[in-house]
């Protein structure tokens, strides 16, 4: 008999050797795309988070390699155009990407190399999930992980439209959308994400969200003691907080880091498209259809009368200057079509 895997609290531990059942179940889904009346979950998992400490990152891309290896993706061999990013953008086969920014700090005159690991932020209020029209194609578990369920994905790209971070990528091969899963399949068996496990400097760490925030605080304190007085945590409240959080040395200017949004939120256009306006539109159509049917059933139809036909015959007689005669055969009387 097997037991359920524990909820992971670190990525550093080695995997248990005894067989264990998965512990991230369909019943742990708290929100699913296009399923507004989802049953509430029976239990609440501990909220998890991945912390990316930008100040500790050395840009080695071990996280990218670990991600490719664990998810068994096969990114195409790229082309060197003289930048460090490899590949040049997130792709359906590359769920995470080190983005490199060269920054000349105007306050200190220092040249700074800012490296940020880009990927899904696992928003508490996910724009992708809100935009998705396919029932159950995007789910959010009670531990905070936002996951794409590919068998339900229809490849419409609405998640791309909804995401405030430009993360999802739709595959040209199978027409399904891909992004970081926060290694939900590893978390399900008590393991932390592959990228965190692989990170040689522990710039990426994983644990409960509370522990990660506490750890981030110690990092911010340390950075401030070293002169980075604008150091801080990036856990944007515009999307309800995220389950991937950053420690930034310039937390006052997140956009320095390869255009990380300063104040990300689901766009009002997406809220308008997906919000109450939808119901108003449907109500208008329903009312119009019902009104048309009722009027059609109960109002007097606009019928041509016998008088109309007689008047028409008179008019035709006058206009053509001929007495009523047997029917003209098309092609003989009227002009050719």
């Amino acid at each position, binding site marked *: 008999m097997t037991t359920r895997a524990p909820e992971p609290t670190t990525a550093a531990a080695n995997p248990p050797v005894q067989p264990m059942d998965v512990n991230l179940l369909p019943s742990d889904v708290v929100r699913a795309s296009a399923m507004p009346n989802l049953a509430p979950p029976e239990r609440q998992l501990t909220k998890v988070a991945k912390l990316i400490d930008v100040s500790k990152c050395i840009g080695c891309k071990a996280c990218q390699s670990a991600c490719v290896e664990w998810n068994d993706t096969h990114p195409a061999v790229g082309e060197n155009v003289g930048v460090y990013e490899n590949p040049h953008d997130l792709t359906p086969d590359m769920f995470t990407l080190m983005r490199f920014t060269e920054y000349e700090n105007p306050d200190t005159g220092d040249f700074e190399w800012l490296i940020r690991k880009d990927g899904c932020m696992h928003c508490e209020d996910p724009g992708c999930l809100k935009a998705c029209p396919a029932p159950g194609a995007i789910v959010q578990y009670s531990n905070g992980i936002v996951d794409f369920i590919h068998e339900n994905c229809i490849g419409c790209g609405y998640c791309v*439209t909804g995401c405030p971070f430009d993360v999802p990528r*739709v595959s040209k091969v199978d027409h399904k959308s891909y992004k970081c899963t926060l290694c939900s399949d590893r978390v399900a068996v008590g393991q932390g994400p592959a990228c965190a496990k692989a990170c040689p400097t522990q710039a990426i760490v994983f644990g409960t969200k509370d522990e990660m925030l506490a750890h981030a605080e110690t990092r911010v304190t340390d950075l401030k003691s070293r002169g980075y007085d604008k150091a801080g945590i990036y856990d944007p409240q515009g999307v309800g907080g995220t389950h991937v959080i950053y420690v930034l040395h310039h937390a006052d200017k997140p956009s320095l880091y390869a255009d990380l949004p300063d104040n990300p939120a689901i766009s009002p256009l997406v809220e308008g498209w997906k919000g109450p306006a939808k119901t108003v539109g449907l109500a208008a159509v329903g009312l119009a259809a019902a009104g*048309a049917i009722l009027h059609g059933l109960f109002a007097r139809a606009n019928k*041509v009368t016998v008088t109309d036909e007689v008047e028409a015959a008179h*008019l035709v007689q006058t206009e053509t200057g001929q007495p009523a005669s047997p029917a003209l055969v098309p092609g003989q009387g009227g002009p050719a079509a």
Partner: protein
Amino acid sequence: MSREYSEAGDHLVSRQPVVLSRYRWFTRLNHWIIAITTILLMLSGLAFYSPMFYGLTALFGGGQTARWLHPFLGLVLAVGYLLIFIQLVPRNLPRRDDVVWVKHIRDVMDQNEEKLPTLGKYNAGQKFVFWAMGLLILTLLASGIMVWQEYFPDLVAIPDRRLAMLAHSAAAILMLLVFILHVYAAIWTRGTIRAMTRGSVTGGWAFRHHRKWLREVAGRARRETSN
């Protein structure tokens, strides 16, 4: 005799009873292609519009197929409507009679025909449907291409894509409303539907609803026969 109220092909089919040809085979065929694609677009589009209608994707063989098919149907609709637009636009330009007709819209509904102006081939309601459909299809085409993930994923930036998505949904709802008006009016005004099936209408129908059109078509028959 040049045409002022009628379109090419409109002619008197018979005098007793009076029957007039209103739409040629090409126009009718095109109309029904437009009608069928519009209905299929509405069914697949509603599935993406609201989870309430997602089950409609089953009609197309699933969500992936519906997602793939929808934009191509849109292209067929756009081409079909372009052809009908070019063909019918001259008689759908607004005239002074239309203003009078709109002011008497209550008399239209109450069927006080004697209070209404005599009209050419189209009344203001038909012209409204013609122009509204044209503008909405143009909006749907432009915004639809901007969000066509399969072929134009990078055509516009994501913020513009959000705007296009909103415009596409709003235009789709308006088009549904115009569609309901169009179908309703065709049914309420008895004797209309045969114009798009058999292609012809009775003299009485033409006398009641489009008298100037009837007079011109009959007048042309006189010239043709006296030649």
